[in-house]
């Protein structure tokens, strides 16, 4: 409740819903798009495309390995496959298939998953993907993104269809707060500076962008001025923006709904270490699997809140020399 007082939280669509809508729109203008889903189309929202274009939609059943291989073959034949499942099942289960059928040959396959992170909620650890970003950034040639809201998602999905090569887009289950305007323009590899400060830079993606904006307002009350970046693309990382803000503020906090090993925080740390070493704190899941619970309860328990981001920011600021 305290949150709403500090920053108005206007809820938008879940990013998975925005994906489903954008995909159906794309289908109308691009006949090469073919959609594959592994029996989760009602959850990933590819069912919107399926309804409109039944001839270009295949529910391959609960068979993710084959799903990815089919996509590789379709792309080799000139189609543009968008393939969807839960992040866990697509990435963790079919990792070798993504490697051999998509990444190594650099096929034009768009991998769009839902149920990223722990905000999946009650279903528990088996459905909560906390490793997908780390796994996907380690696969050469993939663009890896975690959009924050419906506008960001729509734009990235549409852009994915326009470029050639493999793209990973992670969407989430719950409704996502609106961050951007419908008119905001997005490009892969370009972070968005939402707020400019002097003392610390908060770099976030997905649901953690709103939490970072909340934290920035909270920090303002105690005289700490924070920059906030929506870093929707983890790879290629917008290192120029990270470095310029790190230079301007002298401290960085990263926040992601993913475990801290190998995700956004690690990518930012790598950039800072090479180009602009400043104190950095990482907000994320700390090397553990989560559990069943309401999304908000889980985000609270596993430290993915604006309050925790603000604490991390104070810590980072205090570490400045």
């Amino acid at each position, binding site marked *: 409740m305290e949150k709403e007082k500090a920053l108005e939280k206007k809820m938008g669509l879940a990013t998975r819903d925005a994906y489903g809508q954008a995909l159906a729109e794309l289908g109308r203008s691009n006949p090469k798009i073919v959609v594959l889903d592994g029996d989760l189309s009602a959850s990933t929202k590819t069912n919107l495309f399926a309804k409109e274009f039944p001839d270009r939609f295949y529910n*391959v059943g609960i068979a993710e390995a*084959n799903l990815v*291989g*089919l996509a*590789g073959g379709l792309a080799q*034949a000139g189609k543009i496959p968008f393939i969807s499942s839960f992040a866990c099942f697509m990435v963790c289960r079919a990792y070798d298939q993504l490697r*051999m059928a998509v990444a190594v*040959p650099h096929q034009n396959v768009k991998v769009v998953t839902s149920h990223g992170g722990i905000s999946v909620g009650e279903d528990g650890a088996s459905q909560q993907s906390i490793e997908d970003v780390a796994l996907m950034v380690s696969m050469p040639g993939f663009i890896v993104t975690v959009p924050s809201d419906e506008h960001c998602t729509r734009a990235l999905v549409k852009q994915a269809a326009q470029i050639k090569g493999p793209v990973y887009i992670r969407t989430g289950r719950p409704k996502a707060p609106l961050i951007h305007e419908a008119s905001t323009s997005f490009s892969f590899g370009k972070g968005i500076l939402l707020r400019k400060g002097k003392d610390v830079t908060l770099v976030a993606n997905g649901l953690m962008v709103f939490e970072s904006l909340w934290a920035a307002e909270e920090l303002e009350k105690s005289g700490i001025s924070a920059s906030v970046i929506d870093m929707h693309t983890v790879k290629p990382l917008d290192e120029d923006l990270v470095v310029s803000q790190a230079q301007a503020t002298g401290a960085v906090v990263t926040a992601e709904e993913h475990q801290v090993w190998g995700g956004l925080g690690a990518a930012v740390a790598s950039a800072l270490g090479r180009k602009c070493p400043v104190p950095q704190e990482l907000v994320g899941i700390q090397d553990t699997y989560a559990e069943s619970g309401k999304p908000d309860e889980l985000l609270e328990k596993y430290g993915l809140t604006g309050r925790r981001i603000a604490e991390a920011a104070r810590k980072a600021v205090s570490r400045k020399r």
Partner: protein
Amino acid sequence: MIIAKKICKLPLMELPSIAREVRKEVIRMLAQAGSGHPGGSLSAAEIATCLFFQAMRHDPKNPQWEDRDRFVLSKGHGCPVVYAAMAIAGYFPKELLGTLRKLGSPLQGHPDTRFMPALEACTGSLGQGLSIAAGLALAMQMDKKDRRVYVLMSDGENEEGQTWEAAGFAGFHKLDRLIAILDYNGYQLDGAIKDILDLEPLRSKWESFRWNVQEVDGHSIPELLAALGKAKGAKGQPQMIIAHTVKGKGVSFMENNNTFHGVAPTQEEMQAAIKELDGDPSLSQALVAAGKIKKGGK
């Protein structure tokens, strides 16, 4: 021999000598590379010959020809037999075969489309090629193209779960443009398949996944061509040709000798093998008599 015809077809009487030539090139390139998999290439020499010189519609001088049939080598470790067939068909000069597995060569240790786009798929992680081939066939079906996808599988790949995911999909969606040839040579890396994870009853497994299955002697060119002809004309079902073969076929000391699953011949073994393929087994016999060849086998 360079054949630069739009649709690569040779007179039937020439195919046995092509298959022999393919085997010799396999032996030579593996000996030169010093590593690789002879057994599963030699078992597929007639299969590759029938595909590249008779059954498939392709143009070696224009590998990206849009109206081509597609070929996927799912048993990626068998790439020497495909490289040999491609070189003889005129995709690239035979001299390139000597660069197999060497730095910068388009002839990678397992098929890699980054270096040779004509291969259609990156394989070597077993059990994935059938899915990729099914994706190609699905695209043809969606576009109502009268083309075929040929996929050469190993027997060991039938142990992979993904093979059966793909089999189920292809059967259910009636991908009759998909023609799989299964090189049933009976061995996998660690030994005989029947001792590790017996596949039988293999025919009825594929049939139960709604495939039309034919069984042939995989070293009989007439049987292979007849089966491929039937498969091409079939409607409503994906097509499986189980080709019963002998691992290491054509070189007596390699036949059913699983040592040569993944070990390249030495120079001495290469000379003996080439001589034998040319009709003179004396060197091979001498090597065996001298106890110079490790004999695994049945």
